[in-house]
């Protein structure tokens, strides 16, 4: 079954073709990073306008790169939650048009579930179930227990900033360009990750929640001095070298993510650990989770970097599960800002 995937949930206009949920024929990402850079973050109205201009080009490009036509497509999968609703609406309108005009089945897909399903396209092969999955990006930091590929039980999530958001905010403090993930990673090279004593905060309770807002404030005080206000930091030189600040911050985030993920794996008794989302493109996180996970006896499944950041191949995989099960959504498919399945501590 050849599935056309579409995702416009944030600032990337995407389309992809995946066969049987495992073979990625093409994955097109029309990136808008340059449009948003001068604002230091994603501007929803600018993202929405760019999405309109990028469809149906992204779909045509995905078909062309895959060497197929719409005649070869068996179903359409589109992200309809969670995300910027006005951005989601654009991809959903394009998906409905293709499905309606070609009389193809249409299914809506949860963007978070899709980040987990990107692991089905990992070079080492799909994960086995049950497993634990960490989805970590600019908008989400959540841990799930997956008894099967299509059941996600939320174990914990960030109570404040997402990890990727913390990268963006710390990058802004240090005067590093948006997006913060790649620029912190690059600035951290050669830096001393032990230079700053930063907290590894753990929210109260026995769940698997995260908190990153205190870490950002700690970076501000340790790097610029106790009397510094967040708005005053950009443009000033920190009292500690930028490389050391970046390396220390990155290590603090990675420590917490790896530790909590492996705790969740132990708690649920699974043998496999999956990671997805834009922050999963971070080299330190990939290497540390792979090493620590393997040492603890887990098989760690890490998708290629380009399938960790937003893409539509993961959406095509996610949609394939629903399509193959005979599920269909109507042409009245709606968009939602939040995930639907949010069972806390399931």
């Amino acid at each position: 079954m050849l599935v056309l995937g579409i995702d416009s949930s944030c600032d990337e206009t995407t389309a992809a073709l995946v066969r049987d949920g495992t073979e990625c024929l093409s994955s097109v990402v029309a990136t808008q990073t340059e449009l948003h850079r001068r604002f230091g973050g994603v501007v929803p109205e600018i993202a929405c306008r760019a999405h309109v201009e990028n469809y149906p080009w992204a779909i045509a490009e995905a078909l062309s790169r895959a060497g197929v036509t719409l005649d070869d497509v068996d179903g359409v999968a589109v992200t309809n939650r969670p995300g910027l609703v006005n951005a989601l609406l654009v991809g959903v309108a394009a998906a409905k048009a293709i499905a309606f005009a070609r009389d193809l089945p249409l299914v809506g897909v949860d963007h978070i579930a899709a980040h987990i399903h990107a692991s089905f396209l990992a070079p080492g092969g799909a994960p086995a179930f049950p497993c634990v999955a960490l989805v970590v990006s600019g908008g989400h930091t959540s841990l799930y227990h997956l008894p099967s590929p299509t059941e996600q039980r939320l174990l914990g999530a960030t109570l404040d900033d997402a990890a990727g958001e913390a990268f963006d905010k710390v990058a802004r403090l240090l005067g590093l360009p948006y997006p913060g993930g790649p620029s912190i990673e690059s600035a951290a090279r050669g830096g001393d990750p032990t230079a700053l004593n930063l907290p590894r905060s753990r929210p109260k309770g026995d769940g698997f929640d995260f908190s990153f807002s205190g870490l950002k404030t700690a970076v501000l005080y340790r790097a610029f001095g106790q009397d510094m206000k967040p708005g005053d930091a950009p443009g000033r030189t920190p009292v500690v070298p930028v490389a050391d600040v970046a390396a220390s911050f990155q290590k603090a985030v990675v420590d917490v993510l790896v530790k909590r993920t492996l705790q969740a794996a132990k708690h649920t008794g699974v043998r496999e650990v999956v990671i997805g989302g834009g922050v999963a493109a971070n080299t330190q996180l990939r290497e540390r989770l792979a090493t620590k996970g393997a040492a603890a006896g887990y098989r760690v499944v890490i998708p290629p970097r380009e399938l960790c950041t937003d893409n539509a191949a993961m959406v095509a995989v996610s949609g394939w599960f629903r399509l193959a099960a005979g599920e269909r959504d109507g042409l009245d498919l709606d968009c939602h800002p939040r995930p639907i399945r949010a069972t806390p501590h399931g």
Partner: protein
Amino acid sequence: MIALALDTSGSAGSVAVLRDDEVLARISIEAGMRHGVELFPSIERGLRDAGVAARDVDLVAVGVGPGSYTGLRVGVTAARALAFATGADLLGVTSCDALAAAVPAGDAPVGVVVDARVRAVYVATYAWDDERGWQCQDGPEILPPGSAAERLPDDAVLVGDGAAAHHEAFARFGSAEAAPSVDAVHVARLALRRHALGEREELDRVVPLYLRKSTAEMKAEAAGR
């Protein structure tokens, strides 16, 4: 020549299916601001009522605004992707042209005034041409209601929902005998006429007519960034 027209520029949208000059189906979308949900079921119903399959459509016509940003994005993206998937031609029609087209022929100029919210209106002026119908003379522009009223000829008759929404600014003008919201039938007719004259548009050139940059860009420019 089968035309499928859609307009989602306002809270009330519509879909029309025409065979040349004959209206085969017309669907009103009382969507509020839920075009994302209502548009495709309405297109499906319109084509079914008309007895036409999506692959039989020769021309997709879409109202490109000015109007509700979200509505325009849903409508324009839908139209572009429909044209791509069916191979039909695509033409964009401004909502002002479509509103003016609903007004009977007359000597007095027509002022199209559409509520843009945030204390502003979209405004355009039209004059009658015996061969080509209502022709745009000025606009469309986005202006505060008072400035828009000053832009209009004194003898203009108005169409659109802007005069009622900003009554104090437009009280001195008469009203045209036409519906205050865009009818996709007029979008279809205007597009069919241009198509018959040989006009074609690349898919990528059919984009929403926002008339304004995003708030973030306007603020950045005002701050000299």
